[in-house]
């Protein structure tokens, strides 16, 4: 059988459809690249969900909105982000396996949530829906204060004296406070003053927290502190009672906490005399032996123990039972400091978050975090100052208690991918009483490395590093990293490189980081000092290791512009991998022993190598390195002395700034001034850059100990200007006092150069000096004599005697000051 068909019919009915089909199949996927499979799936899910919603009505529809929109989003706080970035920390949050990511767009959510708030059943889901709606409004710009209206409307729907009504009114008050509408906040707080059946203690505590903040905005810091103290005490009492009722045996973290609360209550009256956080030491140790030290805190309340308050405050945070308690404790800490320093008006901070190309970053989280709260990660349910950026990337905080703050940002992976926020650990924002600060944040594209990259294998005597030039960069710092089994050893290999390329001799890489004389990273296997990580010892001398490198670009003022390290999550942003291999040398038998973690044998092997060839600088360097590692465990003085004797020889064979620095540091510790001065001078000579703030500080301290006070003060003054962390401010203040400067001018310096560290806030030195002033006022002559005597002892390095004196009998301001000075560095 045959088919007869005209060509035109063949084309029309067969070839044309086939061609169209082929075109569709081939073109479609490439045209669709703007939608990844995941996005496509999400878009499909959205369509399905919206259709389902459209098909339902009445209570079934409300039920559906509740199940599909309100409840899934309620699993976590709205202020939960994939990445939290900040100067002192960064944190990644992966979305959990069981979590549903809503396919809905913000506009869909607003519409559905609005509907639910108006028509949904007036139960707990309604409150959640309101909170989510408010977040969406904020992210969209909250035009005409829709958010406040939505909360007010929802509050109308619940019964007027219910805890839901009170909670919603408190939410309105909080938002009014944050927006700087203090009068409205006050009215709402009044409205929220009624007794409720459920959750009363939580709501009382929350109301007190808001009232305390509001009182502060009215210049009533002292009243605010009293209110917060008693609210905290009350809250803890209720919890302790509940705890006792539930658990009669009484494990009692709450009981302890409430006891400690009593101590805090006493602090208000103590006024300016207590030491705040100055006694330090409360970094994080408190966590392990909590029960015992809490008990101690309670006991010490009898003797007025102002000195303990810093410790107690820190520990109470660890034991806080709920976010409400955490908030109250944080407010208490902030108010206490504000009262001591006489701050009497709130501050405002606003800004815009954009990318360097001008695109606003919308829906990013902005967390304004007080210095005393930075030790823990962002806790979105108790952060006092958090907001989401609107469509233009804007944010604003009002009614902020003055003090030192850092901003942390919350991003989605998409927002931060390929970009970096060039923030540094010492980027502090000081919000002064009554100030209005604008703080814009600009994200920068990650810098691209050019060579060596992508696991390139290098041989030869030098490594040629090259990277993308950055506009406006005054210099670059190059860091190298040795990676071993998940441990990283990073060194700043070269600083202040002015070009976008540099040639670094392999020997300089082998010397990277100099020697660590104190802490060594360990790996599994091997005992004692033999567990020290081979990678930390061999570094770049191991041709089998994979190395990576990175670049930070700085402007002329020393601020980071951008960096090569960051989030690289798409094929386009992955870019060049920063890895390379350095196979310029082969390992010696002794090196292999190190790699095999046979350190004791390696030590002997290097000793033999060096004895056989006194020019073998590698063996000598490794020998010293191993001796340091051994000493870090044995603390045997003989080992250290041997290492140092050898180091003197090494610096002759291989003159390297790192080695000279190690020697200077060693002789500084021993007050061997002629050797110190010799190696400090050598260090400056070998160093490729101008002395940095740390070099100057250390030398300033050394000069001070040598009695060369004027030179010391000059070096320390230069260091303070250059070092944003003001790490050596205590030494500088001591040097100024020793030179006979009055307390007033020393106080000015303490204020000008705030030191920020885990245990000490930026106001701790000014507070110490203010206490000295108060103490001096009582008996000036006796105080001056004692101060001169103790400073003399400090300059002549009678540290032990001073520590003993500072620790015994009644604590005084001078004892606290001397103790703090001894802890500098």
């Amino acid at each position: 059988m045959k088919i007869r068909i005209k060509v035109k019919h063949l084309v029309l009915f067969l070839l044309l459809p086939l061609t169209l089909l082929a075109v569709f199949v081939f073109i479609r996927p490439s045209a669709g690249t703007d939608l990844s499979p995941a996005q496509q799936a999400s878009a499909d899910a959205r369509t399905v969900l919206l259709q389902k919603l459209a098909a339902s009505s009445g209570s079934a529809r409300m039920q559906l909105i509740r199940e599909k929109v309100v409840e899934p989003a309620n699993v976590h706080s709205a202020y939960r982000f994939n990445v939290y970035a900040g100067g002192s920390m960064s944190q990644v949050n992966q979305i959990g396996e069981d979590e549903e990511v809503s396919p809905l767009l913000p506009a869909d959510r607003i519409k559905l949530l609005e509907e639910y708030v108006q028509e949904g059943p007036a139960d707990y889901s309604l409150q959640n829906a309101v909170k989510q709606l408010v977040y969406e409004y904020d992210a969209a710009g909250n035009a005409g204060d829709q958010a406040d209206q939505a909360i007010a409307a929802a509050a109308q729907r619940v019964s007027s004296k219910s805890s839901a009504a009170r909670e919603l009114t408190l939410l309105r008050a909080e938002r009014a406070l944050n927006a700087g509408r203090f009068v409205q906040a006050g009215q709402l707080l009044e409205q929220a003053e009624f007794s409720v059946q459920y959750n009363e203690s939580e709501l009382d505590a929350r109301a007190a927290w808001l009232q305390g903040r509001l009182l502060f905005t009215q210049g009533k810091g002292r009243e605010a502190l009293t209110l917060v103290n008693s609210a905290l005490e009350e809250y803890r009492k209720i919890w302790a009672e509940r705890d006792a009722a539930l658990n009669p045996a009484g494990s009692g973290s709450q009981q302890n906490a409430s006891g400690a609360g009593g101590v805090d209550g006493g602090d208000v009256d103590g006024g300016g005399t207590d030491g705040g956080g100055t006694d330090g030491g409360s970094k994080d140790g408190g966590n392990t032996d909590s029960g015992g030290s809490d008990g101690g805190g309670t006991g010490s309340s009898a003797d007025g123990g102002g000195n303990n308050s810093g410790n107690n405050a820190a520990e109470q945070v660890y034991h806080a039972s709920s976010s409400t308690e955490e908030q109250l404790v944080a407010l208490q800490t902030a108010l206490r400091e504000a009262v001591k320093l006489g701050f009497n008006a709130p501050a405002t901070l606003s800004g815009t978050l954009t990318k360097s190309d001008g695109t606003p970053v919308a829906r990013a989280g902005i967390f304004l975090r007080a210095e005393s709260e930075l030790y823990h990660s962002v806790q979105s349910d108790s952060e006092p100052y958090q907001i989401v950026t609107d469509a233009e990337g804007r944010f604003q905080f009002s009614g902020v208690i003055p003090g030192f703050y850092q901003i942390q940002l919350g991003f989605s992976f998409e927002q931060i991918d390929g970009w970096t926020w060039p923030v540094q650990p010492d980027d502090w924002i000081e919000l002064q009483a009554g100030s209005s600060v604008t703080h814009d944040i600009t994200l920068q594209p990650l810098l691209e490395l050019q060579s060596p990259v992508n696991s390139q294998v290098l041989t030869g005597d030098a490594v040629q590093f090259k990277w993308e030039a950055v506009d406006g960069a005054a210099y670059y710092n190059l860091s190298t990293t040795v990676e071993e089994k998940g441990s990283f050893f990073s060194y700043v290999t070269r600083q202040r490189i002015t070009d976008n390329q540099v040639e670094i001799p392999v020997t300089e890489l082998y010397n990277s980081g100099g020697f660590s004389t104190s802490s060594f990273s360990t790996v599994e296997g091997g005992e004692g000092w033999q567990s020290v990580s081979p990678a930390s010892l061999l570094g770049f001398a191991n041709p089998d290791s994979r190395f990576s490198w990175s670049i930070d670009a700085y402007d002329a003022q020393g601020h980071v512009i951008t960096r090569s390290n960051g989030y690289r999550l798409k094929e386009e942003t992955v870019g060049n991998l920063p890895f390379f291999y350095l196979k310029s040398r082969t390992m010696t038998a002794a090196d292999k022993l190190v790699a095999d973690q046979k350190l004791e044998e390696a030590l002997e092997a290097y000793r033999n190598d060096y004895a056989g060839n006194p020019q073998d600088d590698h063996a000598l360097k490794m020998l010293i390195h191993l001796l340091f590692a051994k000493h870090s465990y044995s603390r045997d003085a003989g080992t250290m002395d041997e290492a140092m004797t050898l180091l003197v020889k090494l610096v002759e064979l291989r003159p390297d700034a790192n080695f000279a620095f190690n020697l200077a540091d060693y002789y500084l510790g021993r007050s061997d001034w002629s050797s110190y001065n010799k190696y400090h001078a050598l260090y400056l000579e070998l160093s490729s850059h101008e002395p940095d703030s740390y070099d100057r500080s250390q030398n300033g301290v050394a000069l001070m100990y040598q009695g060369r006070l004027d030179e010391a003060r000059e070096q320390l003054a230069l260091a303070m200007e250059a070092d944003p962390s003001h790490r050596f401010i205590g030494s500088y203040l001591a040097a100024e006092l020793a030179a006979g400067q009055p307390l007033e001018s020393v106080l000015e310096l303490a204020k000008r150069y705030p030191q920020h560290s885990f245990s000490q806030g930026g106001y701790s030195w000014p507070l110490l000096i203010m206490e000295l002033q108060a103490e001096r006022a009582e008996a000036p002559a006796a105080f001056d004599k004692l101060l001169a005597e103790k400073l003399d002892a400090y300059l002549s390095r009678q540290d032990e005697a001073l520590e003993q004196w500072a620790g015994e009998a009644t604590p005084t301001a001078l004892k606290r000051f001397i103790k703090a000075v001894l802890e500098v560095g």
Partner: protein
Amino acid sequence: MDNGRETIRQRLEDELAHVTFSGHSRVLEQTHPPTFRARLAALWNKELEIPLGTLGAAAAVLTTGVLLFYAPQITVKQQQSIQVQERRELIETGGNTYWKDLYEQAVKQHEN
């Protein structure tokens, strides 16, 4: 004279008696070439006769080819969408944070 011519004509006719002229169309094509349009129309309206067996065989070959060509892509596509739905793991190395799958792919590309 006339007789002579007649004879020659007769002879020519006799000699050409078995020759027939069949080149009309070719001559016409050369003297009056058909327009492009006419040729296209002719082609367009040309009738093809396709044996059903051949057509069936061709269709079978084509279908098999298409299936073989696209089958791997179809399965890969399904796998991909599953992979996307599964959790991706982040990895921090060389100072950067990558998705582990992308990172491993990049390393593989450079180290082989």
